[in-house]
């Protein structure tokens, strides 16, 4: 009888975890699953840039397919600044404000200011749909706060992607601690339920590197038409390892990385065949002395200086290098 019960339980678990529902329960996280980034990071505005945040705010955009008409939610994991995950500087005294915008002015393709890359200009474009300030609040530590419900129709429609655009702004409005958090775009206020076809992207990625040697993080800038090279800028990498750029046509180009509190830029040539797909920026930790709690920033732009979006779910999938061997006869020397 006991044995029958056990078999029954195993079968139930198998059905549950093997079902599409389980797949959907894995949610649509930001950072994305393929990115393997532990946390996004935003410091209080009194923090030092050398701690790994150059501007103390971070903007993420969400695209909701036009044909999705049900309410949706933006869930923030560990929105407070204190407790287990966040980076303390002296004592936790930081307040972080999360604001959700929709409506006209949000779409970064139509409104460049919205991307948040142009210093001194207003990136708080669009209609403010919701906002909340978090301090050191244990009830949100390692837990979710859910924004919404939002009506997808409240977004800024982008015809190219046939999606409604929303954005969430995270600002360190006071204090100097680092707030580490994640987002989940969900159709359910209490669970992580992915919205099919939705995506998330940013133009300036502020994130925490892993505290171990083996984990490799990724980001996936999308290469749009007309791009012949991109210029990457990375900030405060603390000389922590290597950044390798991989695509279907590049096995791995090594690019220079920054040290403490500085920017390093470099150009990466783009093959015509790489257009319309994503690059894979791989972040390999330095071997030897482990660099801990390393927060970094990275942006990319095309040859005209237009910022490129990093998609949480890479457009075209994760690029896998395809080796190309050419065999040719060697001319005989007489």
């Amino acid at each position: 009888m006991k044995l029958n019960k056990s078999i029954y339980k195993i079968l139930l678990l198998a059905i549950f975890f093997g079902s599409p529902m389980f797949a959907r329960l894995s949610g649509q996280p930001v950072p994305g699953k393929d990115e393997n980034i532990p946390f996004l990071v935003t410091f209080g505005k009194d923090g030092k840039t050398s701690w790994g945040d150059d501007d103390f705010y971070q903007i993420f955009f969400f695209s909701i397919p036009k044909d999705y008409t049900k309410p949706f939610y933006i869930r923030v994991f560990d929105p407070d600044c204190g407790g287990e995950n966040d980076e303390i500087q002296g004592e936790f005294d930081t307040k972080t404000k999360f604001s959700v915008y929709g409506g006209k002015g949000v779409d970064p393709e139509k409104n460049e200011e919205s991307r948040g890359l142009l210093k001194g200009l207003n990136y708080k474009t669009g209609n403010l749909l919701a906002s909340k300030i978090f301090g050191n609040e244990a009830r949100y530590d390692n837990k979710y706060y859910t924004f919404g419900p939002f009506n997808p129709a409240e977004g800024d429609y982008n015809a190219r992607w046939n999606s409604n655009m929303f954005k969430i702004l995270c600002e360190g409005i006071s204090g100097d601690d680092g707030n580490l958090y994640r987002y989940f775009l969900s159709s359910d206020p209490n669970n992580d339920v992915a919205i099919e076809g939705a995506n998330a992207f940013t133009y300036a990625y502020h994130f925490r590197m892993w505290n171990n040697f083996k984990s490799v993080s990724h980001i996936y800038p999308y290469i749009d038409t007309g791009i012949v090279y991109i210029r990457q800028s990375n900030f405060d990498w603390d000389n922590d390892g290597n950044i390798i750029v991989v695509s279907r046509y590049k096995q791995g180009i090594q690019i220079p990385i920054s040290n403490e509190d500085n920017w390093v830029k470099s150009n990466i040539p783009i093959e015509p065949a790489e257009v319309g797909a994503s690059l894979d920026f791989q972040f390999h930790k330095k071997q030897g002395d482990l660099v801990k709690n390393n927060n970094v920033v990275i942006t990319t732009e095309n040859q005209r200086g237009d910022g490129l979006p990093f998609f949480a779910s890479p457009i075209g999938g994760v690029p896998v290098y395809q080796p190309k061997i050419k065999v040719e006869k060697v001319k005989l020397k007489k």
Partner: protein
Amino acid sequence: MKRRILYNITFILYALLVSLQTKAQQPAVYQVKRMSFNWNGFSNISPVIVKDGIIFCSNRRFSGIQDRIGYDGRRLYNIYLAEKKDTSAFRKPKVLKSERNNKFNNGPLCFAPDGKTVYFTSEVETGKIAEDRNFKNHSGIFISELSNNGTELVSIRPFKYNNPQYEVGQPSISKDGKYLFFASDMPGGQGGSDLYYCEYINGDWAQPVNLGPNVNSPEIENYPYIHPSGKLYFTSNRPGGIGKLDVYFTSLYNGHWEDPLLLPEPINSTADDFAFVAEPNLQTGFFTSNRRNNDDIYEFTSTIIRKATCDTLVENNYCYRFIEENAAKYDTMPFRYEWKFGDGSSGTGPVVEHCFKSPGTYTIQLDVVNLITKEVTYNEKSETVEVTEIEQPYISAPDKTGTNQRIVLSADSTNLPGWKIAQYYWNFGDETIAVGKLVDKSYFKPGTYNIQLIVTTEPEPGGAVREACISKNIIVIRQP
């Protein structure tokens, strides 16, 4: 010591084997045929090839009743044209008239490049003294024009170097008209009759130049014939020939006349063989011989096969370059590319080269070592390479050799799958040939020779015979 003896024995056996094997068939290079317009009992000599047929010299009767006898009582030679009736037959020869017909010999002769000016041999002295039966009249060269109807030599004038004291005659002009070759026993030669040439400078023939001891010998050299190819054919009775007068040829190389070479049988014979002329392609021509106890003109046809179109030998190449194309574009790749070539050897780098030892199918494997993570991706990519020999007859021969050095040529590496080869035919580019898979050859003159190897199959079902030709150049340098 024992090893040395063994080595020597092995070497001798090998040499003997090669020698036996390379005693390949040496088929006759020429076929000869006596011309139909010869007249038995009369001399028929010194053919000249013209557009309409053959011009030659003969001491035959003009007709059944007409005859010409010189002052010395000997029959007179005159010039005749045997017109072609078709490709193999000639009409009855007609005499070319001149004011000298009746009393003096006419011919041998040659035409200048204009096709109108005729240089011919005749007697120098025409005065009363020439009528003395005991007077020794000497020959000279005379220049004339062919009449408009082509039947008469007119405007005859003597060559400036004629001399009543010695013989000058048997002219031959180079195809550019700049050099006149002739025979003479003028003083200062090598002995007997020698060959000379005059160069045409500023509208006149310069002083005669003796061709020197490489060509002229103490014996007779006469009947020069300068072929359009630049080869100089002539006749000599020097020692070393096949018998009596024989035909030789030489060429000018770096300003020097090469050692003359004897033409093979059946052009030369134990009888007198002389006055050789040939078509520009050297495939056909004419000469004179008294091998049937009468001076007759013979036609020769070369049996040498030489293809107008023949592929150039391509060396088999088993060397390949392998390129990881994307990696080769960038120099900041933190990877090491390790190649396994499928024959036990390997190489490293985004671009590697490898030469396989022999044809075959090889699987090339690329392993990639990530220098950052130290991870190795085994067999990241593999390619199959078919290394094949080129389908062609193959000439194994040195690129360079020396004069008078024996070289061995082999067709052993011929790669023509499905062909049942019946014959390997070699044309060595110097009008010599051989038949066989393994042949030997010596070149006597320096130069660059184009060797052709022509292979033919046994008749296939239906009777078709397949043929393939490959060629290769060999440089022959002078060896002391």
